[in-house]
């Protein structure tokens, strides 16, 4: 399966999943090994949203591993999107919004790539992306929605969205196509060695993404025993059989946040913004050199961000729940 077909046909979808070993087995591995599960050209969906629970360590590893030509989708794209473009990892980003964040203005890196035709930012409404993952998760080829209708957001999608008539009411709604990514990258607070994941707080689209994807690469702040998961089964949000790799990566979303664990590293985000403000190409390259290619491993990267900075972010991430 390539990421060219808009909607994978059902026989192929079923066969792709049936071919995978979905049995209860341990999947704990390293970032390096997990990165081998992503092939050049894959459609990779990214969990979390904006500055939240971004699977940054896994993205960081994929850039280091030199993967190319990915199509990446995410509800809302922030600085990780800049790195995906600047590193050459992704040629297309499917998203509803793409910039560092409102307080930092429009992403100059995104602008440079898109305005010069070096890469594509394929825009869908936020709900439409969510419903595309949901259709994929449910194993149906499309779902009807009532947004995007009548706007240019729909118009420029061409044949990727289609009006459809309800067979009961006769009214016209919009069909959005299922999205079944080849790989989903998801970062969570807690998972067991089989890949049963428990998410705290904001879920964004992660559950649908996990169900829709051919396979999930899970990074987690902490690996806990299967026994702990089984004591609170109604907190489990992602079942093990969707997951192909589990990697324990403390501070795995830095410089973004992880709910209940740490807040975004605003100093790091400001530093990045300042770098690309001068020159989006050189600035992004320097950031990649300094923070992605430079460190010998993820811990080294964290050391470069600074232990005081991390502890402050942790304190701020927890203090909100002291109230």
């Amino acid at each position: 399966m390539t990421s060219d077909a808009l909607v994978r046909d059902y026989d192929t979808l079923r066969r792709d999943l049936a071919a995978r070993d979905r049995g209860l087995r341990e999947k704990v591995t390293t970032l390096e090994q997990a990165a081998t599960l992503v092939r050049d050209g894959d459609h990779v969906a990214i969990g979390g949203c904006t500055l939240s629970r971004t699977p940054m360590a896994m993205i960081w590893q994929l850039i280091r591993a030199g993967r190319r030509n990915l199509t990446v989708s995410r509800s809302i794209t922030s600085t990780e999107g800049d790195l995906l473009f600047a590193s050459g990892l992704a040629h297309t980003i499917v998203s509803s919004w793409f910039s560092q964040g409102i307080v930092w203005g429009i992403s100059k890196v995104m602008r440079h790539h898109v305005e010069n035709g070096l890469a594509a930012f394929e825009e869908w409404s936020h709900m439409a992306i969510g419903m595309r993952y949901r259709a994929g998760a449910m194993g149906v080829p499309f779902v009807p929605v009532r947004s995007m209708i009548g706007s240019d957001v729909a118009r420029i999608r061409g044949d990727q969205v289609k009006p459809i008539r309800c067979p009961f009411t006769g009214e016209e709604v919009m069909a959005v196509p299922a999205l079944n990514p080849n790989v989903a990258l998801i970062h969570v607070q807690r998972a067991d060695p089989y890949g049963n994941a428990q998410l705290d707080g904001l879920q964004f689209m992660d559950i649908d993404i996990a169900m829709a994807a051919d396979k999930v690469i899970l990074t987690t702040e902490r690996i806990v025993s299967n026994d702990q998961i089984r004591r609170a089964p109604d907190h489990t949000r992602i079942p093990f059989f969707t997951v192909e790799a589990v990697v324990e990566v403390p501070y795995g979303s830095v410089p973004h946040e992880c709910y209940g664990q740490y807040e975004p590293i605003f100093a790091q985000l400001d530093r990045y913004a300042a770098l690309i403000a001068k020159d989006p190409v050189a600035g992004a390259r320097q950031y990649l050199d300094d923070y992605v290619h430079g460190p010998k491993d993820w811990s080294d990267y964290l050391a470069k961000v600074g232990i005081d900075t991390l502890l402050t972010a942790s304190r701020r991430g927890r203090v909100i729940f002291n109230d």
Partner: protein
Amino acid sequence: MTEQTTSSAYTASELIAIMAGRLLVDGQIVFAGVGIPLLAATLAQRNVAPKLTILFEGGVIGPFIRPGELPPSTNEQRCTRRANMVLPSTDVLLLLQRGYVDVGFMGGAQIDRYGNLNSSFIGPADKPSIRLPGTGGGNDISSLTNMIVAMKHEKRRFVEKVDFITSPGWIDGRDSRARRGLPTGGMWRVVTDLAVMGFDAETREMEVLALHPGVSFAQVQENTGFPLRRAREVGVTEPPRREELALIRELDPDRLYTA
């Protein structure tokens, strides 16, 4: 209104936030975007509408934002503080489609005579001079509920026709929105640093409803790229009150959104 309770020393953003916040009614369910809308909704909630329920795109129902800790987007944990519920972001957007939301409230980069918003492209979509960040939830919100938009009043932002309809307003006016397949919602108010505008009930053209203190209609027209209508009676808004300004400065002491 006495001298003691009003103040003329405020920024344009503060003015917009205060004026926009006043449009919210206690008990409403408001889907708020990041920036001024988030700030204005929080202001209203703390000021006059304690039972206002704020929804955020990240999947949050009814939070209380803490002063000085405004979130950088509507998708971070700061958005969830003391919320009634968090849920998947697709599902919070589906609340709009089901009809639970009274009003959507967002910012805008570019707006036209019929209240259509553009946050995607300046110039043609296939070769834009500026690629803007895109719709986010804007398209969904404006397709499915009644809208308040808060933005700076500049001629380059108030254009005859937007380059690209990211978030649909009244499309080409009159019943064109419904004919395009959007039977519900629509642009209700546009709040700027100069005035509060609505849309003519028949033609759906933008019209000035009230001017902010010290602003003339001519001044609003001068900063608008199309001929504005005047409502039958154009009012004057009550100036920002000291309490409102104090509150907004307590909420945003670092002037993250109100510089």
